């Protein structure tokens, strides 16, 4: 794309679109990178781009992403006259006395605002985009963050010319009848530092106190109908102007004079430095940090593994609203011997890493995913890197668990509503800030939070629904906003994950970040998903490589002791750990694991299919010292009793005191389908049902007797089978029974009436003669006609034909002779039913007169 602008070089652009047109491709790309929302959808031309850049939603977004100084600059521009030259801006930011730091930082801020298309125009006439000006400029309902009030011109706009004259006179200016020049004169006075100083010198000291109170905002003050003399003195001279009957406002020019020209009490041109935390226990050395973090990384892996191991055979149920119940969370916390908040974090981590999900069955439960099994096969460092990567990129915010959402329901872990888009960015930023500190140094949390607030002041403020205050003390003690909370959580989570150790970023954490930071800087520029994935995979690989030497080598042996414990003085190789955790109960975890052998645990191993000799061999192979005698004895003792009692399923049995006879039956090939098995010399167990068995044995030529559950012989009687109580069938005659007279009379009457209804010749309605309903169709007429027709019929006593829809919605045609029409009801003799009935008028679809001859 070439330069599209038609504006000649040097001359100022008149609109934002023109200004954009004069930018080169690189600058446009920078704008789109900074404000990616302008790109969806891609604008067709620069005018459209300019319009979109000026929409409120987009400007708010852009403002929220400004750092504090850029925002302060924008705020200053919003209180400066439109088309302010750069020097005016400098004056507003640095004040009359000048401030080198501010002046040095200002070009960057202005450039940033320009890049974002929030400010345009040359240095001689800087323009803030109108929407931004509206958002940032003071209005009576929304005071400006600068604490400045409206200008003299704005405050006097509704004032009577006479009042203005009085003010001008009191202020010692030459009177003029033109209110515009009067206001201009006043403004000139207020902006002239010398004359203003002279004017204020004459002020009573109480009046100066009043001004002092208003100078840094809010600029509004309440006054009584009869103000005190100092207020009156100020008001008379226009130093305070009425804003409403009970309030006065300090005009912007006056405030600026009193502030020595500064728009902000404290301009913050440089980001607050993130300082190192005062050294805590064990001064931070990089090696110590790495070692601590590595230890914690191992703990994190154990926590996630233990958690999912616990849910190996199916976890707890998913709540109907999604997520895990508080009770199940408590249980998980208990199993991990940790707090619920920590347990929530591990659960969310496993969930974010795709190791845990709901099974999606009708009776929904949580369970480890197939990815978990894959994950388990990775070496420790790889497992950690995968978790850390998932943590870094997940928007799930476990810190919210337990707090209430907008509807007063508490967020449940793994449940909906825990995603916060700010989380990823904040998390990354916190780690980046940590990475900027020298290695092995922890950050003081308050300075870190202050820095984050400086970088995104508006986001911090809006998230907590608070008004930005320019007083740093207020900010520090103000309500904790979401970003700060996320940052605090991030620090805690990073420590639990082993990304940091003792608060300082560990080298493997740094490796993880190295590529992520690159990814982050490019994040505003849409990159290919695959590319991002490749970059983060590379980072994870690097982090794992850095972490590997820090983690202890898995051991292949344990120390067995005579008090029936085994100590693994470090992490164990997986197969060994798995077998051991079946064979013994875990008593203590950490760098080492202490196992205790109990009869129960040994039985568990035997149940799992191990034999006593297996276990002896296993222990001998993995112990560096001889297996203690009490342990061997324990295994033998449990094995001796294991399986002593046997339980199985059989459908029936055969018993016989004659063992030879049973031998015979077993030997008979024809008995094979019965599934007979000898379980004692005189007892056979069968898989076949008792009656089948009896029959089969009889066929074989034996004379078996059935036995009751008490062991008594059942006497075989003919088996009588009965149905439940039944009524005899009703007779089905040839035709229906002969009707009696009453019925017949009624029937005839009904038939006649029906016939009358269907066959009557209809008189065409006067209004719409053409609309003769086809036979079988309901007559249709408007409600007014219906009413008129039935009223007329009632008066004349004639018969009409109506279409009627009853309460069940079924339609019918009736021939009625209306008697009375009142209250929306027609009372009529119904020829069809042969009785007097009442019909609601609204149910009548229409009415038609019958041919006269019929009635």
């Amino acid at each position, binding site marked *: 794309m070439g330069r599209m602008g038609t504006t000649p070089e040097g001359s100022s652009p008149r609109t934002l679109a023109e200004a954009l047109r004069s930018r080169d491709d690189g600058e446009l790309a920078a704008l789109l990178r900074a404000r990616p929302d302008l790109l969806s959808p891609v604008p067709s031309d620069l005018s459209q781009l300019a319009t979109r850049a000026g929409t409120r939603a987009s400007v708010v977004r852009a403002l929220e992403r400004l750092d504090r100084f850029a925002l302060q600059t924008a705020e200053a521009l919003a209180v400066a006259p439109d088309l302010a030259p750069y020097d005016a801006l400098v004056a507003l930011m640095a004040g009359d006395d000048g401030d080198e730091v501010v002046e040095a930082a200002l070009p960057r801020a202005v450039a940033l605002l320009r890049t974002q298309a929030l400010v345009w125009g040359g240095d001689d006439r800087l323009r803030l985009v109108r929407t931004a000006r509206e958002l940032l400029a003071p209005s009576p309902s929304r005071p400006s963050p600068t604490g400045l009030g409206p200008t003299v011109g704005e405050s006097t706009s509704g004032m009577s010319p006479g009042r203005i004259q009085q003010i001008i006179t009191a202020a010692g200016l030459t009177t003029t009848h033109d209110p515009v020049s009067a206001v201009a004169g006043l403004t000139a006075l207020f902006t002239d530092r010398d004359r203003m100083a002279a004017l204020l010198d004459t002020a009573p000291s109480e009046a100066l106190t009043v001004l002092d109170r208003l100078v840094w905002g809010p600029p509004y003050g309440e006054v009584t109908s009869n103000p005190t003399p100092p207020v009156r003195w100020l008001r008379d001279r226009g130093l305070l102007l009425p804003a409403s009957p009970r309030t006065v406002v300090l005009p912007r020019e006056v405030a600026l004079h009193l502030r020595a020209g500064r728009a902000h009490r404290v301009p913050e041109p440089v980001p607050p430095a993130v300082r190192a935390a005062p050294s*805590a*226990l*064990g001064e931070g050395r990089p090696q*110590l940090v790495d*070692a*601590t*973090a*590595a*230890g*914690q990384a191992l*703990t994190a892996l154990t926590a996630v593994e233990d958690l999912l191991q616990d849910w190996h055979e199916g976890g707890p149920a998913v709540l109907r609203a999604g997520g895990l119940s508080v009770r199940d969370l408590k249980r998980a916390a208990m199993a991990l*011997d940790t707090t619920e908040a920590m347990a929530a974090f591990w659960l969310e981590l496993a969930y974010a890493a795709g190791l845990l999900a709901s099974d999606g069955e009708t009776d929904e439960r949580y369970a480890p995913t197939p990815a978990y099994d894959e994950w388990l096969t990775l070496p420790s460092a790889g497992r950690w890197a995968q978790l850390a990567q998932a943590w870094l990129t997940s928007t799930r915010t476990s810190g919210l668990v337990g707090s209430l959402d907008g509807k007063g329901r508490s967020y449940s872990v793994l449940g909906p509503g825990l995603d916060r888009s700010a989380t990823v960015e904040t998390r990354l930023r916190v780690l980046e800030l940590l990475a900027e500190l020298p290695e092995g140094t922890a950050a003081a949390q308050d300075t870190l939070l202050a820095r984050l607030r400086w970088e995104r002041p508006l986001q911090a403020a809006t998230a907590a629904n608070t008004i930005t205050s320019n007083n740093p003390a207020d900010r520090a003690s103000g309500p904790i906003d979401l970003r700060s909370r996320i940052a605090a959580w991030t620090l805690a989570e990073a*420590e639990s994950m082993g990304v940091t*150790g*003792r608060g300082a970023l560990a080298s493997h954490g740094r490796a993880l970040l190295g590529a992520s930071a690159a990814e982050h800087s490019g994040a505003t520029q849409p990159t290919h998903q695959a590319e991002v994935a490749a970059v983060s995979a590379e980072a994870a690989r690097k982090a794992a490589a850095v972490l590997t030497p820090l983690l*202890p080598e898995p051991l292949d042996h344990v*120390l067995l*002791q*005579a*008090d*029936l*414990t085994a*100590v693994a*003085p*470090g992490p164990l190789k997986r197969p060994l750990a798995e077998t051991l955790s079946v064979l013994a109960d875990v008593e*203590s*975890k*950490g*760098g*080492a694991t*202490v196992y205790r052998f109990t009869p129960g645990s040994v039985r568990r191993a035997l149940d799992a299919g191990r034999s006593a000799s297996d276990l002896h061999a296993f222990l001998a192979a993995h112990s560096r*010292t001889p297996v*203690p*005698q*009490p342990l061997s*004895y324990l295994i033998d*003792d449990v094995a001796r*009793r294991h399986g002593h009692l046997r339980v199985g399923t059989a459908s029936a049995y055969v018993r016989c005191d004659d063992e030879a006879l049973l031998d015979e039956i077993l030997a008979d090939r024809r008995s094979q389908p019965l599934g007979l098995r000898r379980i004692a010399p005189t007892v056979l167990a069968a898989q076949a049902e008792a009656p089948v068995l009896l029959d089969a044995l009889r066929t074989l030529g034996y004379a078996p007797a059935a036995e009751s559950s008490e062991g008594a012989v059942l006497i075989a009687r003919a088996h009588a089978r009965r149905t439940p109580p039944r009524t005899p069938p009703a007779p089905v005659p040839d035709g229906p029974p002969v009707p009696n007279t009453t019925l017949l009379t009624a029937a005839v009457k009904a038939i006649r009436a029906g016939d009358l209804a269907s066959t009557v010749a209809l008189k065409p309605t006067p209004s719409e003669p053409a609309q003769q309903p086809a036979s079988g169709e309901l007559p249709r007429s408007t409600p007014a006609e219906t009413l008129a027709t039935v009223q007329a019929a009632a008066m004349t006593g004639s018969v009409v034909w109506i279409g009627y829809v009853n309460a069940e919605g079924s339609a019918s045609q009736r021939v009625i002779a209306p008697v009375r029409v009142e209250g929306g009801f027609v009372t009529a003799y119904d020829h069809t039913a042969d009785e007097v009935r009442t019909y609601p008028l609204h149910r009548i679809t229409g009415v038609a007169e019958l041919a006269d001859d019929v009635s």
Partner: protein
Amino acid sequence: MSCLIVQSDKTLLLEVDHELAGACRRAIAPFAELERAPEHIHTYRITPLGLWNARAAGHDAEQVVDALVEFSRYPVPHALLVDVAETMARYGRLTLSKHPTHGLVLTSTDRPVLEEILRSKRVQPLVGERIDADSVAVHPSERGQIKQTLLKLGWPAEDLAGYVDGEAHPIELDETGWALRPYQKQAVEGFWHGGSGVVVLPCGAGKTLVGAGAMAQAKATTLILVTNTVSARQWKHELVKRTSLTEEEIGEYSGTRKEIRPVTIATYQVLTTKRKGIYPHLELFDSRDWGLILYDEVHLLPAPVFKFTADLQARRRLGLTATLVREDGRESDVFSLIGPKRFDAPWKEIEAQGYIAPADCVEVRVNLTDAERLAYATAETEEKYRFCATTATKRKVTEALVAKHKGEQTLVIGQYIDQLDELGEHLDAPVIKGETSNAQREKLFEAFRQGEISVLVVSKVANFSIDLPEATVAIQVSGTFGSRQEEAQRLGRVLRPKADGHEARFYSVVARDTIDQDFAAHRQRFLAEQGYAYRIMDADELLS
């Protein structure tokens, strides 16, 4: 690779075979309790009580953290270090001290803590008027109570109010032909330095001498509380032999005699005798201006004695025990009322130094006969233990064991009198039980010491403090359910070093597949944790 592994559940695993193990043990012993001491890896536990103990003994959090960080093989969880520092910082925020005008005063360096504890309902009745923002008067009589209560609230008070010297009485150790062993000296010094507290030494390691040493340091009138009369006599005997005290200076205050002398030995039983709702012998505590109170077998201290002790906080207190495990879990009361643990020596360490005999512990498993099994299965729950513990098979096994160790001084120890009587009859050995008179007991013990009797059947009266140096074999046929300390005390009966240095034998005869076996497993835990490995043997092996 260092020798210590710090677990996240605050246990410390020490590899004993490691070259640094000794140094590490010395570094962690002040604040960590030795929980288990089997052959390869000893387990220590960091508890608030232990940390406060360390603070009371003058250690600070930095030393603790340094020790952990220095010896730990893996990085120490940071949270644990923070927790250690925070727990230790709780000690000494409150101090009890003497005020010239207000008497006993509780002072705080941390005002919110004082406010917090003063709001507690349990503290309110114990304190008097508020003196200023940081201190409050305490009724002198509630000194023990308030310490106990504050400990429960998690803000242990440091007691700086000091001790009364008591009525002076010259006591010297008479070290002719013997000397205090090094660990006994350390124990005495540890106690004296700390003011009050508990000394834990294995059975047979000479706790009486630690008591005598403490008395020689105090040089003041002393009240000694012991478990029973026989033990009282032994204390008297030992004190006369080892110190400058004479028979006349030592009084016995028991069921039979009520003497109050500069050194008085009283039994727990007589103190806790209650008549018409009052304890008539309580005045003993006030009858003299005692300078030192000695509690023998402090793990058995009955509840009323705790209460009396609460009133004795101005006097130096020394508790002696082999096993500071209480099945009732009142270790914290021992800490707050008697004092923190001042000295502790693992059994195996003393054994290695040759002061107690090595012991071979064997659990003999006997099978119930078929008839017994059926009877056991149908017995009432409360009868079950008695039933399986007294099975007839045990008699046969006991006889076989006695026969096997013919010529060695053997004790047969049991719980149930019927069983013991029957055993006495079959073994042709005298039985000492509750109803045996003290005179008769002493006669029999003396005969046993002299070797005139080689087998003695004893009930639980002989669990403690009975000095039978010659016993080399103990056979336990039944016990008080799962009592760990009883097992340890019983083993203690045979741990006196033997003249020829041969090892002692401890047999525990247990009925297989019954609750007797479960109880036995629990009973053995303390000793197993002290490194005594039980071998398990089948009775058939022995009988065949």
